[in-house]
């Protein structure tokens, strides 16, 4: 298999992700690591909560990986996404892409995170000191 796509409730590990996509034919790996910021639009964030429609989220992430394989000469694609409660500095998502040459890895990785944010049924709630909001839900 050249994809590993998982929703996880435990801490994501960057080294494991790099190790999984690496092979003797690999010349370059691009890794995107999302992290929980302490502010959003200038307002202090206490924590985030992620919820997923799990089966469909996996299937949409697999589609994105297949689109990336169709567009760039990449070798392996890994997408790990957290669900549940995340504190500041924790990692909601890791995307790792290996390729013989780096341009393909960079471009596919950026395509995957950009598309994931548009199509994959995962929702993020920001918890502030004085309330909470589902991100992007309201106009």
């Amino acid at each position: 298999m050249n994809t590993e796509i998982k929703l996880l409730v435990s801490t994501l590990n960057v080294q494991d992700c790099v190790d999984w996509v690496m092979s003797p034919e690999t010349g370059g790996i691009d890794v995107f690591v999302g992290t929980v910021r302490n502010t959003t639009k200038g307002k202090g964030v206490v924590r985030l909560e992620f919820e997923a429609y799990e089966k469909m989220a996996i299937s949409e992430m697999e589609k994105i990986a297949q689109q990336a394989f169709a567009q760039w000469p990449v070798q392996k694609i890994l997408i790990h996404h957290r669900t549940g409660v995340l504190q500041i500095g924790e990692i909601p998502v890791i995307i790792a892409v290996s390729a013989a040459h780096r341009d393909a890895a960079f471009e596919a990785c950026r395509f995957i995170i950009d598309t994931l944010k548009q199509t994959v049924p995962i929702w993020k709630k920001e918890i502030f000191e004085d309330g909470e909001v589902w991100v992007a839900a309201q106009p």
Partner: protein
Amino acid sequence: MKINILAFGIAKDIFGSSEVTIDLANDATISNLKYLLEHQYPRLKHLATYMVAVNNEYALDGDNIHERDEIAIIPPVSGG
């Protein structure tokens, strides 16, 4: 036909539940479903947008709903 509707994110808050049951005509479309839901849960109309998924695929307004389809309300996603 009775159809169960799964709800996620803000839709779960609007429905007050992660699953609601709606009574639909046998040849109902996604459009018909949205109309009924928005009547029963007017706050749905205040979302930036929302989609309906049928059996884990995004559906179009004209698509028909069949008994035993898995239907889910997909408010604007915000993963990553």
